[in-house]
């Protein structure tokens, strides 16, 4: 981290309360480094895992939401599994990504949330993920039109990509979930 100068004035109490509600006890961290040392994607992070946990404990929401780290985290759960204090670090990353999207913060890794949104769009429409539709949507929105063309084609030739989506019957139940069921209570 190039700029580690932080001030209590920047502490987001709301963010800390949110972590508490989700049982993510970042205050329990004693900076042992096990989380960072086992992270498979750590080499690509701008804020390493133990730094992210400490910044979270200081309520430094802005720094975290603007980081590459939150998007590059693969949700592999290695950190949370090995943390001697059982801190739900992967859960912290989930909270940060969701907060960044809800607040409309420009993601440091724009393609990654576009992928997630393409995936979720597919589930919202059909109730199941439909790869071709999802990939098409992602490619158009990310502008990454040529990447993996050959791979996609060979998967298609091997019958691994369905031409048409499979739609579930109870689509309305899935629509309801996507319409924000539960969020009425602001959580």
């Amino acid at each position, binding site marked *: 981290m190039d700029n580690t100068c932080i001030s209590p004035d920047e502490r987001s109490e709301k963010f800390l309360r949110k972590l508490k509600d*989700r049982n993510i006890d970042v205050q329990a961290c004693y900076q042992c480094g096990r989380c960072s040392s086992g992270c498979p994607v750590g080499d690509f992070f701008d804020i390493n895992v133990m730094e992210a946990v400490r910044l979270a404990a200081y309520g430094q929401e802005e720094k975290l939401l603007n980081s590459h780290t939150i998007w590059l985290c693969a*949700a592999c759960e290695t950190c949370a599994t090995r943390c001697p204090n059982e801190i739900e670090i992967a859960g912290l990353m989930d909270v940060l990504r969701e907060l960044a*999207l809800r607040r409309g913060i420009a993601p440091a890794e724009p393609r*990654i949330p576009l992928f997630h949104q393409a995936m*979720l769009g597919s*589930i919202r429409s059909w109730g*199941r*993920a439909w790869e071709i539709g999802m990939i098409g949507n992602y490619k158009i929105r990310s502008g990454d039109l040529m990447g*993996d063309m050959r791979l996609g084609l060979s998967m298609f030739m091997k019958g691994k990509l369905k031409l048409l989506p499979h739609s*579930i019957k109870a689509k309305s139940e899935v629509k309801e979930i996507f319409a924000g069921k539960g969020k009425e209570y602001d959580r």
Partner: protein
Amino acid sequence: MKLSYYPGCSLEGTALDYDRSVRDVCRALDIDLLEIPDWNCCGASSAHMTDHEIGMRLPIRNLLLAAEIGCDILVPCAACYQRLKAADKALRTDPGFWDVARFSGDFQIVHISSFLARPEILAAIEARVIRNLADLPIACYYGCLSLRNPRVTDAPRWEMPTTLESIVAAIGARPVAWSHRTECCSGSLTMARPDISEKLVGDIVRAAKRAGATAMVTDCPMCQANVESRQPAVEGVGDMPVFFVTELIEAAMSGTYPSKQQRAHLVPPGVLTGIFSASTMKKEGPA
């Protein structure tokens, strides 16, 4: 034996061959699979990574459907397994929070390799082997989500799992001891950051090679797709096929490795085809 079955979206698409072999193996072992009617996507990683509420409610709907059947749920996909387990824990702790009046289902969510590695199932498989895998040196690859986080998955040995090893040993392959059994393949990062996928896959395949493996076996559809599809771009690897565990069992129990299964691989599965074309490898069938 009857089990509810949750295939999940991968097994309808990129891992269609996994689904086929799971169903075939279960049929051969007299296990009835009752596919959960009108199941929906569990949200995979994208839902829980960006929206907690959706990430929980999608798998919850599946659990409520499964509760009506009442049997244990067999789940071949590691990612679906983890999401269903997370939803199950949340429902049992506080159903009201999720607008569910009561959730008392006494059924379990079972990941495929822990199911197949049960002593009685393993014995049934062993008894049906008509052609063993000829000591094939193989790297058992678990990846992340059937194991981690153990507070969610209830995996008994999350750092040192043994289920895949016992299964492949029962069909005559030789599991190698290696370092990357539970390392991450990069999961869903593969689309947006193929460079990261290539690095992780390169590390994994090189580790398997170092240990002397000529093939890998997994029980996760994402691991299978990533490790096969990302190899061509990585120097020094590219010839390590990744089999689904049920694909190997099916081959050993039927004595054939059908060409439609072979064709599903992005890395040519020559090591296995070789075993099945060699006529010397016959073993006595069940008495």
